[in-house]
C-alpha cells in the first residue's frame, strides 16, 4: 500500500507534481494533498454528486476516481470559478435566487451546472432537472437552483 506513483495534474490552471498512493481518491487528493477543500465529499459512492469536478471539461465524481487516473488531466474545481467580490455569472445567479442553504452540495451543483450550460440547450426546466438528477440537495427542494440556472441560460442572471 505504501508504494507511490508520480503524477502530474493541472488543477485550476496550476500544474502539480506529486507522489501519491494508487488508492488515493481524487477527492482526497484535491482536499487533503492540495488543500482545495471547496470540493465536498458527501457519500463516497458516486450518488450524491457533491464532489463533482470537471476533468478535461467533463463533469466527474472525484470520489469515484483515483488521483492516479487524473495523471495528465486538467481538473477544474469550484475554486476555478469566480472569487468573493467577483462571482461569476452562475455563482451570482445562485446568490440572487437563494439557490443554496447549507452550501454543502453547492460546489457540485455549480460544477454540474457549468457543464450543463456549456453543452446542452436546456430548452425546458425539466431538461435542467434531468441534468441535475445526479446531484442531491436536501435543503432547497431544487426550486431555486432550477431558477438560478434558467436565469443564466436565458442570459438574465439578475
Amino acid at each position, binding site marked *: 500500500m505504501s508504494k507511490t506513483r508520480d503524477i502530474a495534474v493541472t488543477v485550476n490552471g496550476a500544474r502539480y507534481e506529486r507522489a501519491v498512493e494508487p488508492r488515493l481518491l481524487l477527492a482526497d487528493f484535491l482536499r487533503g494533498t492540495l488543500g482545495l477543500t471547496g470540493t465536498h465529499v458527501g457519500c463516497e459512492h458516486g450518488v450524491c454528486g457533491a464532489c463533482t469536478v470537471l476533468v478535461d471539461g467533463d463533469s466527474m465524481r472525484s470520489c469515484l476516481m483515483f488521483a492516479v487516473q487524473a495523471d495528465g488531466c486538467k481538473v477544474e474545481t469550484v475554486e476555478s470559478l469566480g472569487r468573493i467580490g467577483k462571482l461569476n455569472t452562475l455563482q451570482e445567479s*445562485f446568490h440572487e435566487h437563494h439557490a443554496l442553504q447549507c452550501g454543502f452540495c453547492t460546489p457540485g451543483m455549480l460544477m454540474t451546472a457549468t457543464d450543463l450550460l456549456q453543452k446542452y440547450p436546456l430548452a425546458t426546466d425539466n431538461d435542467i432537472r434531468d441534468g441535475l438528477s445526479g446531484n442531491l440537495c436536501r435543503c432547497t*427542494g431544487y426550486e431555486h437552483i432550477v431558477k438560478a440556472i434558467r436565469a443564466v441560460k436565458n442570459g438574465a442572471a439578475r
Partner: protein
Amino acid sequence: MTDAEIHARPKIVGARVKRTEDPRLLTGLGSYTDDRQAARVLHVAFRRSDQSHARIRAIDCEAARAAPGVVAVLTADDLSGVTPLVATSRMANYYATPISPLARGKVRYVGEPVVGIVAESRYHAEDALELIVIDYEPLPVVIDAEEAVRDGAPLLHEDAGTNVLVAREFKRGDVDAAMEAAPVRVKGRFRMHRKTPVAMEPRACLAEYDAGRDALTLHSATQVPGIVRDALSAALDLPGHRIRVVAPDVGGGFGGKGSLYPEEIFVCAAARRLARPVKWTSDRMEDLTCNSQGFDEIIDAELGLDKDGRALALRADVIGDVGAYSIYPWTAALEPVQVVSFLPGPYRIQHYRGRVRAAATSKAPTGPYRGVGRPTSTFVMERLIDMAAAKTGLDAKEIRLRNLVSADELPYKVASGIVWDKSGFKECLNAACEAIGYGALRAKQEEARAKGLWFGIGIASYAELTGIGSRISVAPGMPINTGTETANIRIDSTGAITAAFGVASHGQGLETTLAQIVAEHLGARFEDVRIVQGDSAAVPGGTGTYASRSLVLAGGAATLAARAVREKVLNAASHLLEASAADLVAEDGKVSVAGTDRSVTFREVARAVYSEMGRLPPDARDELAATKTYDPVFGTTTSATHIATVEIDPETYEIKVDRFAVAEDCGRLVNPLIVDGQVHGGVAQGIGAALYEEVVYDDQGQINTASLVDYLVPTACEIPSMQVVHLESESPTTLGGFRGMGEGGTIGSPAAVANAVTDALAPLGIDINELPITPERLFRLIEAARARGKT
C-alpha cells in the same frame, strides 16, 4: 420623525436581502468541520457492531495495534474515566438508558461503535479495522415494536425491566361514550415508516487538546454546540470554560445533528489521552446506519363525527419504535409522544384520548427529524378527515371548513392540552385552494376519471407550536430549558458591530436574518453587523438550533439587546452633538439630530467612547454593549395548508407529484427569500417521506438501506415546482410577531400526498394508510382492491 416618515423608510426586516453566507459558500471557501486542518492530526475509524443484539465476550485488538500507522486502539475499558450520560426526564413511566462513547458489555444495534482506531490517516485507520476480532454471543433479536412491548419479550436493557421506555396518555372528555354515540365513524391502522435525515454533509468532529491548560476545543458538525459543551463537561468532568464547542459551517442537519453523539465524546477523550488533535469524519454508510433516525410509528386511530361531518371524538393508540437508546438530551419520548399531543391538530374536537408507548428495539436510536411527531400526527388526522369526507359525501375542503377552529374561537385549547394562539387556519385553507385553483382541479379530475386516468388532489391542514419558551419542554418531561436565548451585541473600538448568540445555523441563513433584525433595531447598516453563532463560547448559556426556535428566540433577544445598545449610542452621541437624546435618530450607522444635517457615525461615537481622550464625560463612556435574554414563555402557533396533485402511471404505478401549493402563516417575515427556501426544502423532504424514503431493517436487525442507492432521497426530477403563499399575521405572543417555520414543509406534505394518492384511486376504494407508498405497496393495494371487486 413622524410616524409616516418612519413607515416610509425602507425596512431591513421584511426585505429580500441576499445572504451574507453565500459568497464564501459559492467560492469553495466555506469552513466545514472536515475542512479544518490541524497539525499532527490523527484520524479515527470505528469498528462497529455487525450484530443487532449480542453480548461482547472478548475483543482482540493486538493485530490492529501493530498495524502500520496505528497510534491507539481503544475500547470501552480504555475509556472508563468517561461518565456515561443519561437523558433524564420528569415523566413517569420513563426509563433512561446510559450512553457511552463505545459499547460496554453488550451491543444493541448494527452500527453501534465498539472499538475506535486512531491512526495517522483515515486510510491507515480503516486498514486496521478488519484486524480486530470481536467474540459475540448472539442474543434474541428485538426488531418488531409490537412484539417488543409484549410481556416476556427479550429485553434490550435488562435494568429497565421492560422495552417500553415511555408510556403516556392524554385525554379530555369521555371519548368512549362520545365515540359510541357518533353516527359517523372512521378508523384505520396507520404506519409511518422509519426515515433518516440525510444531511448532505456527513457528521464530523475534530477535538484539539491544549495539554498546558487541560482544555479542549471540539469542532463538530452539530446543531447544538451548547448542549454538546454541557454534556462533555459532565462526561469528562471539565468546567465549561475549558471546553469550547464550535459548529462552523454545517452542511444541513434536519434534526440528525441535533443530539449528542458517542463519537463526539470519543474524539475528545482520545485527544486528551493522546495529546494530539483527533478527527472523525463519518462516511455515508455510517451516516445511514448510526445517525439518529426519525418517525417510525404504528397508529390505530378512530374519529367519530356527527351526520354533518363535524368531529366529536378522536382516540388513538400509538406504538413508536424508538430504537436502542433514549437519545440525549431529548429522550425517547420526543418523537412518539408528540404524535399523540399533536394528533387533534387545528380541529375542534371535544373528546380525545391518545395513548402512546415508546418501544426499544435493536435499531439505531430515533431522535429529532424535521417535523418531529407532527408529520405522522398530521398524516393520520388528515387521512381520517378525508375518510370521513368520503363517508359523509362532503368535499375535502368543505369538511375541513366545518371542523377547523375559527378565528373567533382563538386562543383555543386542544384536547391534548396545547393552546393555539391567533393563527389563520381557515385562511390558510382558503388561500391554498385559491392559489392552486381547487375548483378547476376538481373539474379536471372529472375529465381525467372519464378517460380512466388516475389523477388525485390531496389537502392537508396542520398547526404546530414553534419558538417555544421556558414553560414548555421541547421534549415532554425533558428537564433542560430550551426556552430562552441570549444575545450579546457590542460595538467595539473600531466601530464594528458584533452580535453573538447561542443558536447554530446549519443552512437557515441566521447570519443574514439576525443581522437584519440587529441592524433594524440598532439603526446600523446591515453590512456592518457580524453575527457570531455556532460557538459555545459566544454566550454563557446556549443550546443551538432545532424545533423551529432560532429566529423567534434569537430574534427576540437581538431586538432587546439592539435596543439597549442603541440607547447607549444615543446617550454618547447626545454629548457629541450637543443635543438631547430624545431628538436623535439612529439610522444607517449614523446618529442624526432630527430635522438637521448634524450627525455622527457609529464609528465616531465608538472612538469617542473607547479611544479618544476628553470627548465624553466619564458617565457617558459606558461600553457600547448589552446582553439580553428573551423568553417567549409559551411559544407561538404556526399553521398551513398544503395541497398536492398527483398522477399515477397505470403500468408502472409510479406516482408523480404534479403540483404543490402551500399557504402558511408564519407571522412576520424577516426575509421572504429565505422563508420560501425553507418551505421548498421541507416540502421536498415530505414528498420523500411520502413516496420514497424508508429505513429498512431485516428480521435479524441488519439494515438494508445503508447506501443512497437503497435509501432514496428525491432528486430534482421528483420534486415539482411549488407555489408558496404567505399569510403574514403577526404572532401576538412573540416579540416582533415572528413565528417559527423551519419544519412546517415536512409536516403537511406527507399527508397531502397520501390524500392525493387516495383521491386518485377513489374509484378503486383504496386508502393510503402506510408511508412511503412505494410502487410495490401500491401494486399490492390495487391488486387486492381488484380482487375484491371481482368477488
